[in-house]
């Protein structure tokens, strides 16, 4: 599974940076979408394998994995919807469509999953979480406020902008929870923790991608197959590697 994902990832990378379909934007669009859907499918399949093998006597982690599985399924459906919208319905950059609906619910699943993952480890106190939440709410609130107020001032506050703003909220929640989850493991080069650190890195790339995507789509500079999609697919690759690492731990490999 990981080998197939690496091959698809490398092909996608070559595609993103080689400008191979420079004179055929439609073909570029099709390949850009198809690569993402294939990687997203591989990520989902790898998560299904892990969930199926996960022991029943670790209930909070097993439930967390179920929510990751649901999140990945919704992200895949979102990717397919985006592909259908762009290729078959000819809507370029269909923000505010069905794809966003599935990605939104997918994000909620990931947030629930991270909360469940946090609950399986001992925490001496919740002070760090409260501290992170305060900082996160302040920064997130400020970014949200400046985005919305700028849109209102320019008279460009539309559904698609509102949806992009909701992602800011998700991103900050995910960021805070991820920092809280991996904080105790980050300085420890311990192979038992690799899967968590890879997962955290994957979410971070997603958060960064969302911010850049929001800005690019606002200024009309984004197109499917843009090199920035690298961050998007790194998230799926991370999910594949997390699954592989977990599978190895569970197989005592």
């Amino acid at each position, binding site marked *: 599974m990981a080998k197939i994902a690496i091959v698809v990832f490398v092909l996608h990378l070559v595609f993103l940076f080689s400008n191979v379909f420079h004179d055929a934007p439609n073909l570029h669009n099709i390949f850009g979408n198809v690569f993402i859907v294939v990687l997203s499918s591989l990520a989902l399949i790898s998560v299904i394998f892990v969930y199926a093998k*996960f*022991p029943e*006597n*670790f*209930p909070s*982690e097993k439930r967390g994995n179920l929510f990751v599985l649901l999140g990945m399924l919704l992200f895949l459906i979102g990717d397919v919807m985006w592909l259908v919208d762009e290729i078959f319905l000819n809507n370029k950059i269909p923000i505010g469509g069905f794809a966003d609906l599935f990605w939104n619910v997918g994000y909620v699943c990931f947030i629930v999953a991270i909360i469940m993952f946090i609950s*399986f*480890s*001992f*925490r*001496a106190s919740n002070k760090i979480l409260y501290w992170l939440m305060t900082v996160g709410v302040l920064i997130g609130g400020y970014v949200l406020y400046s985005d919305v107020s700028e849109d209102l001032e320019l008279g460009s506050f539309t559904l698609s902008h509102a949806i992009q703003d909701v992602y800011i909220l998700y991103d900050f929640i995910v960021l805070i929870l991820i920092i809280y989850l991996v904080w*105790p*493991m980050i300085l*420890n*080069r*311990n*192979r*038992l*923790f690799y899967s*968590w650190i890879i997962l955290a890195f994957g979410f971070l790339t997603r958060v960064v991608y969302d911010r850049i995507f929001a800005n690019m789509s606002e200024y009309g500079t984004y197109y499917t197959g843009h090199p920035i999609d690298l961050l998007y697919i790194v998230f799926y690759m991370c999910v594949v590697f997390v699954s592989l690492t977990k599978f190895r*731990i*569970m*197989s*005592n490999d």
Partner: protein
Amino acid sequence: MIKLILTSGDKARNVFLDEIKHSEKNLVSVLSLKSFAVYKSNLDKACSSRNCFFIDTVTEEYNDNVVYVPASNLTAISIAINQAQQSFSGKTSVIFDSISGLGVNNDQAILMKFLLFLIRKSRDWGSELVLILPEEALEKKYVELLKQSCDEVRK
């Protein structure tokens, strides 16, 4: 089964090695009193026909079945215990060589919260938890609380 073994500091090592001999086929052990290197010959012998995983909190030791986690990082220790158990199928024993080593690096009230968390989790995991405690290592009120929380208390 949650076992608390009260002993004296000088007997803790022998009690620990004895408990390992009588543990389940799968073993996860947290070493907080002495490093893996000190126990190595005894542990290699005891683990020749079973699955063992050691979390060394004393010195940085990494090999196939040993990882290092600092004694002061109780969160990381709890995650390591959880993850290590997932590498085995079947019943697992989780054995601490001594709680006193963790007591030196952590506030006793927090250590107590950690132990109660582990006791609760061990019941969820269906694993055997063995806590070896030199009696002088913890304040009396904490020892009493531990006694009440364990299924079996031995001297």
